[in-house]
């Protein structure tokens, strides 16, 4: 399913917010952060800095990162 730039931007913003919470509260980050979660967080960071545009192809990475971080928050 296609995503609009606004939806991608919104997803990136949620990833960044979730990451800010997790990094302050979660003790075992090294067990939590896999490659796609790492990439998703960094894509969101780059997007927030304004140096890159995220494409539709980034959506699965961002979704994976978001789901991983939200699950960690719920633990």
């Amino acid at each position, binding site marked *: 399913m296609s995503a609009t730039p606004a939806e991608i931007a919104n997803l990136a913003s949620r990833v960044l917010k979730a990451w800010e919470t997790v990094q302050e509260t979660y003790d075992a980050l090294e067990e939590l952060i*896999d490659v796609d979660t790492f990439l998703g967080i960094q894509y969101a960071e780059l997007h927030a800095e304004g140096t890159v545009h995220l494409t539709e192809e980034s959506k699965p990475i961002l979704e994976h990162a978001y789901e991983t971080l939200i699950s960690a928050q719920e633990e």
Partner: protein
Amino acid sequence: MSFDKKFITEKDFHTIDFVQESGWDISNAIKNPKTTSAVLEKIASVPSNYMVRTAIAENPNVTNKALKLVAENMSHRWEWRAVWNTFIKRVTDSEAIHDKNTPYASFILNSKLSNPEYVAGYFAVAGGAMAEDLWHDLASRKILELGYREDSYDGDHFGPLWDDKVIEFDGSPAEYILSPGYFCEWISKEQKADLGWVSENLTDTLSDDPEWIIERFIEDYSDDLPLLFAACHGLVNKHLTVADSKAFDNFVVETMLDYDSEMLDVEVSIDSEPEHLQGPRFADLSADGIMHLTENLLLASNHYIPKNFRITPHLLSLVLLHPNTPQEVKDKIIAADVAGMKSTLEFVTSDK
């Protein structure tokens, strides 16, 4: 069988196939001053590896004959350094041949000399200054393109590196000897990122070993290197596009300077004169001076040092490319067909 003697004798040479026993133990024995000139000549006359040849050149008993045999077979910078140091020491010990910062001595410009050994010594000492003068002049005239490449292993590379259609230089023993490398004082350098190349490399690293970059990310969230790895992965996999090229290039260069600056391109520009050079510059020479200089270069090109280090082919190529060089001199260089000048000769003759 191992070779455990401190030095090598005639008897060892006949009983031990020590050249096949490559390694440091043999090198140390060959280097030992108790290994005689005659034995060194014998070792030099059979196939061997670069460590053995380096050791021969480093032995104080090495004869010109053995040194020549090593020079004719050398392929590694250790050999270049050993042969060169021995040759230069003998040249400068025998006579005060020349000042290394004066590219064109009057005796080289005023007559055609007759002693190849002496002329070879001259260009060995003054060749670096002559190369710097001609690189500066030809690059200022946009005839030659100068390049720079950082290299923490072999030392930085500088000279006419990239214009490989015109001149053969990059990675050659001539570059090792003639180039001032990092110490060139008349250029300025600016690092640039070849984004495609950097991205491919960092993406491969991330794929091969993601753990260390994730660890680094977790340890210091403000570290820019993980961010760069992710950005490059995103570009290669089309997860993102660059929004602000200038800001992104700056980010790549700044981050790569801390991580691996050798992955960056270096743009060179001439920003001053080579002020360390003494005496006339090539652009000041008369037609007769250029003719005598060329005749002496051609004489030296028969000697094993300038020939095997490819110094004279390089200097002759530069003379051939210079617009002040009279056609009569160019014809003489072309007719000599010196080995190691193929690219320049093809360029010049196709340009006619």
